[in-house]
């Protein structure tokens, strides 16, 4: 067990997050010197008054990227181990689609995200949608044992929910439809400080709760029968899996849109890079790598002058990892 190398890798990851975070504050159409950025961050004032808004917006999207990337990656590793499926993730299993459907009902129903009732309603609807899909998946997974079949089912949930959303468009007015379509492209841009506080505190809380899944996940790699014989309470575990992955995926989806590929790809990369199989190491590792990939994606989006949608960038990174996994999976099954 090369514990030392694993810890060094975690520290290197933290360092990289800090660097990328700083870079994301620095780059942009408006050139703001680093000294002015630090002055603004520590609450001081600079000559150019408008710069404070620019720095605030860059800071917000960077924080949103770090927490969203971490949340999606943790949801991904939990789902992969629980379903014993290297292709599982909040996006491919249709959990973000469930959250999207909830969001669609609220936005297209006329309550804008800006109003307070709309804000709370959207979060609640997103979480309900995500958990409903999860509960359905857990029920179906009793009868489905082939990993690829479960994936296809998730994709079908996704198509089904987008079909329902398209039907909802029929009744929605043009502004609501536009708001929904823009949201659906996925972006860390434009999140308000109030919403960011909600995102950070909810994700922070549920990432902490993942501590209670460390031992169950360690045991579940052997399957649920063995896990039970190793002292894992399967009912409690199931409830924890539904609530943690459901809330994490839903909160990200509500504020940043349905972001694909980070949830599936990050756990795969962690399995390659880190040696320890203990989720005490693997969960922090996916948090760090998830944050890094999300920041990298956001930096790419910004370097393109905000013209590339976030999901295009995550697909460029994530899709090759998934293809590699499917090839590896087929070798093992053959």
């Amino acid at each position, binding site marked *: 067990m090369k514990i030392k190398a694993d810890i060094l890798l975690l520290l290197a990851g933290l360092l990289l997050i800090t660097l990328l975070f700083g870079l994301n504050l620095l780059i942009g159409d408006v050139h703001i010197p680093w000294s002015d950025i630090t002055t603004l961050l520590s609450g001081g004032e600079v000559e150019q008054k408008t710069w404070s808004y620019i720095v605030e917006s860059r800071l917000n999207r960077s924080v949103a990227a770090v927490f969203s990337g971490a949340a999606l990656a943790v949801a991904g590793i939990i789902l992969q*181990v629980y379903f014993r499926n290297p292709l599982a993730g909040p996006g491919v299993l249709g959990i973000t689609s469930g959250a999207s459907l909830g969001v669609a009902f609220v936005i297209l129903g006329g309550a804008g995200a800006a109003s307070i009732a709309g804000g709370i309603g959207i979060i609640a609807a997103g979480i309900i949608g995500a958990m409903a899909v999860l509960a359905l998946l857990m029920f179906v997974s009793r009868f489905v044992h082939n990993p690829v079949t479960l994936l296809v089912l998730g994709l079908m949930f996704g198509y089904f929910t987008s079909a329902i959303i398209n039907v909802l468009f029929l009744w929605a007015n043009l502004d609501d439809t536009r708001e929904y379509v823009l949201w659906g492209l996925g972006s860390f841009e434009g999140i308000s400080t109030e919403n960011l506080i909600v995102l950070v505190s909810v994700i922070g809380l549920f990432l902490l709760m993942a501590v209670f899944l460390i*031992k169950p996940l360690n045991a579940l790699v052997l399957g649920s029968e063995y896990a039970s014989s190793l002292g894992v309470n399967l009912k409690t575990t199931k409830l924890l899996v539904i609530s943690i992955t459901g809330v994490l995926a839903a909160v990200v989806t509500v504020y940043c849109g349905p972001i694909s590929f980070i949830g599936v790809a990050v756990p795969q990369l962690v399995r390659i890079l880190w040696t320890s199989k203990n*989720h005490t190491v693997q969960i922090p590792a996916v948090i760090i790598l998830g944050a890094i990939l999300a920041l990298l994606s956001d930096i790419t989006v910004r370097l393109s002058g905000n013209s590339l949608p976030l999901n295009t960038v995550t697909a460029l990174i994530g899709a090759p990892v998934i293809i590699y996994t499917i090839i590896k999976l087929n070798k093992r099954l053959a």
Partner: protein
Amino acid sequence: MLELKDITVAVGERRLFAVKSLVLQKGMIALVGRNGSGKSTFIRTILGEHADFSGTVLVDGKNPESLSALQKSRLVSVVYSRPRIFGNHTVLDVLALGRLPYQNLFSKISAADLHVIDQMAGLLKIKDWYAKSFNVLSDGEKQLVMIGRALVQDTPLLLMDEPAAFLDVVNRFELSVLLKKIADETGKLIICSTHQLDRVEKDCDGVLLLADEELKLLTDSSNFLKTINASFGIS
């Protein structure tokens, strides 16, 4: 260690088997019966996972249904027929999973854990395999590691549900000899369901025979085969 009193086990409408009284302390016990006679259900009943029965089951004096999963995991360990793992674990990683019931929230492996792992791996002569990847082992080797994992769990009772189902003739022979050795050296009670009868008289201290809706304990080792064959109607 294991006590059954006035047990009748059923699956839905169908009565599987009954036993008046059965007490087992230690040793290697083979669980023999035809397909569908209730071997797996017997194992699940002891684990407290099959509730459709009447009578009393006591594991170490306690009713397994009233124990938490954690309490049970320190009394009973299990080996199933098909070893599968999700992830690229090494043999040492798999063996270490057996220590889970004794670990804190973060599953840190202590020096005491490593000591138990070394001891059991030594008994099975698989210490050289620690760094090997579990997924590249042969079926026989995998099953040996899974038995090692169950031993590392350090429980007085080991239940095995056809552990040799996917093993070849040589591996079956070696497993049978090994289980007897483990039972003798550790003083544990091992109950192992099997269809392989050629070694029962040499390697088993007793046979639990499931036939004609009854569970009987045979203890006269020189007559195991004769009695089993007679109850199956083959000679």
